[in-house]
């Protein structure tokens, strides 16, 4: 008897997988339409929301310092995305906000309360973990009801909230299932459901989509976004995927090596990166960086690429001969044959809408995106000219952006 039970569960699970044949479509229709369906938003009483503020937060594990003084402010109702390469301390920071990790120094405020010494359960937060952390021995309903039961909410209230959350997330028919009987996407929704039934002041997400396949990830991205539009709960979302950050965030916080490199609205970071790291991290394909040198001539200042091409600059205070890094986004090159930087074509990838050209300029690999359908042979030479006014200059040593005004920008 005990032998047949797991077998039966497995069979049912397989059936579910099969029935989900067109998983993304079916599921998105049910949940995609719901956010607009409930006008009152199901939140009942409008609750106080909260800002999250980190002041000079540091974290050390023994001797090794992982977070070196981070200042971040997330406003009430804002959707903030912490983004950065693997190991830069995003999860650590999030776990410190949640209270799962002690703070070595600094202050964390939720609302206007310093929560440094407040245990996680009293911080009025909810967290969605990367691998969902659903309780395997509880049904979906019990998973979602767990926190409410611990809080001693009345039965009808629990029932109502869980059902409401299940409706919003399209989980209605799965309430009696166990986590192992759900697909990855459904588990992800249960994890979200568990967070929203509590109507907390702050949502914390730690790479919640990274275990999903690409298509589902895009769909869930929209759903989380819609959910936020609807609930307007302050959220801190961790990811290492800059596209996720760009598409979801009200504000992006770019982290690297335990420091905040820059924070701001997505397009602000894209248009005005503060340093080489942010410039290279935000945008896909990444920005190209070319070594350059500053030259002062009687007519003014210019940045010289290779030995030939000079880009006129204005308002640059650096001395003659300073080493610079010139940043150009792949779509900001003009391909010509006369003037410009000589580039050797390494490969061409047409994607239909546009063409990606990989080439080498002065020994540096460069990616170019063009709307035209070029047919360059690998090994051939082309000429590239950066679009006037679309280049970024960085200090070659420190990587900081050098504020310039291109005279041709008008």
């Amino acid at each position, binding site marked *: 008897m005990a032998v047949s039970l797991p077998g039966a569960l497995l069979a049912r699970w397989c059936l579910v997988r099969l029935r989900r044949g067109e998983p993304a479509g079916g599921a998105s229709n049910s949940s995609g339409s719901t956010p607009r369906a409930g006008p009152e938003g199901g939140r009942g009483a409008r609750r106080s929301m909260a800002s999250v503020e980190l002041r000079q937060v540091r974290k050390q594990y023994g001797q090794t310092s992982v977070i070196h003084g981070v200042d971040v402010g997330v406003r009430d109702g804002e959707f903030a995305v912490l983004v950065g390469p693997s190991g830069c301390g995003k999860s650590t920071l999030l776990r410190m906000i949640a209270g*799962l990790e002690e703070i070595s120094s600094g202050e964390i405020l939720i609302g206007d309360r310093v929560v440094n010494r407040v245990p996680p*359960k009293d911080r009025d937060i*909810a967290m969605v973990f990367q691998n969902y952390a659903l*309780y395997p021995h509880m049904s979906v309903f019990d998973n979602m009801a*767990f926190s409410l039961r611990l809080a001693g909410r009345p039965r009808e209230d629990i029932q109502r909230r869980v059902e409401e959350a299940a409706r919003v997330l399209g989980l209605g028919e799965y309430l009696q299932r166990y*986590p192992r009987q759900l697909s990855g996407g459904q588990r992800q929704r249960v994890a979200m459901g568990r967070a929203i039934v509590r109507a907390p002041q702050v949502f914390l997400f730690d790479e919640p989509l990274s275990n999903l396949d690409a298509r589902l990830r895009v769909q869930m991205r929209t759903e989380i976004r819609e959910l936020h539009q609807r609930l307007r709960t302050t959220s801190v979302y961790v990811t290492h995927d800059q596209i996720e950050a760009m598409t979801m965030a009200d504000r992006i916080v770019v982290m690297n090596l335990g420091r905040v490199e820059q924070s701001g609205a997505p397009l602000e970071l894209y248009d005005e990166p503060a340093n080489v790291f942010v410039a290279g991290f935000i945008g896909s394909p990444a920005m190209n960086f070319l070594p350059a040198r500053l030259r002062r001539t009687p007519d003014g200042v210019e940045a010289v690429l290779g030995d030939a091409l000079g880009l006129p600059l204005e308002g640059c205070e650096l001395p003659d001969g300073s080493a610079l890094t010139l940043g150009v986004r792949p779509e900001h090159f003009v391909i010509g044959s006369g003037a410009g930087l000589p580039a050797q074509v390494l490969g061409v990838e047409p994607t239909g809408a546009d063409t990606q050209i990989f080439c080498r300029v002065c020994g540096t690999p460069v990616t170019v995106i063009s709307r035209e359908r070029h047919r360059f042979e690998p090994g051939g030479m082309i000429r590239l000219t950066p679009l006037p006014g679309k280049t970024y200059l960085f200090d070659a040593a420190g990587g900081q952006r050098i504020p310039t005004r291109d005279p041709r920008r008008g």
Partner: protein
Amino acid sequence: MSATDDGMSYLQSLPRRVVTLYVPLAVFLIVLLFPFYWMVITSLKPDAELLAADGNPFWVVAPTLAHFRKLLFDTAYPRWMWNTLQVSVISTFLSLAASVLAAYAIERLRMRGSRTLGICVFLAYLVPPSILFIPLAAITFQLGIFDTRFALIVTYPTFLIPFCTWLLMGYFRSIPFELEECALIDGASRWQILVKIILPLAVPGLISAGIFAFTLSWNEFLYALTFISASENKTVPVGVITELVEGDVYHWGALMAGALMGSLPVAVLYAFFVEHYVAGMTGAVKE
């Protein structure tokens, strides 16, 4: 149907399977089950047949329940059984309760010295009971519980707790940290996490620790022999040996009947929980 010439068919061919599977299995079974067979046969043989020099020793001609009758009505066997059951159940539950708390604390509370403590627990398990029984005898004597069942109920946990703790530590380790962190955020206290999250997930581990503890205390011989002398306080293993062997007279039939009945509860227990038991020994929470 001839053996087909498709490549994998040799795996299915009967002679091959007989050699690689059934023969070893049969040998194994015979070796394992023969003592039981011998026990059953002997307990059913009338004394005359038992002691006869001729006749087939592997078969019983005129089975009788006389030995069982003797055991149940002429000796304190039912009493021993009851004692054994009491001692085993109580010391198992005591040990489990203590081990759950110890294992959880060592594994998850990240306190100072928890690793050293874990290693000490393991070392405690390695100390053989044959060394410990002398000091333990002195202790039980001073506690005034010498020659009572309490002497066993108190001393069995000395080897059960280290074992169960060690086993449960391994099991708790396989439960993802994140579940606990999630519960912590959901508002659970440590105690609630233990009761509502960890224990339900560790049921297979608890069952295997429980079975193991129960078996160990059910079969325990040394402490039971040294700490107990009154017949009405004895356990089955000790009672059978001390009261059914008179000088150099072995009451083989009754001995075997006693051993057989004594091993039944454990066998039933195993049969009942065998799947959980295996799952527990191999560890790993699914998902």
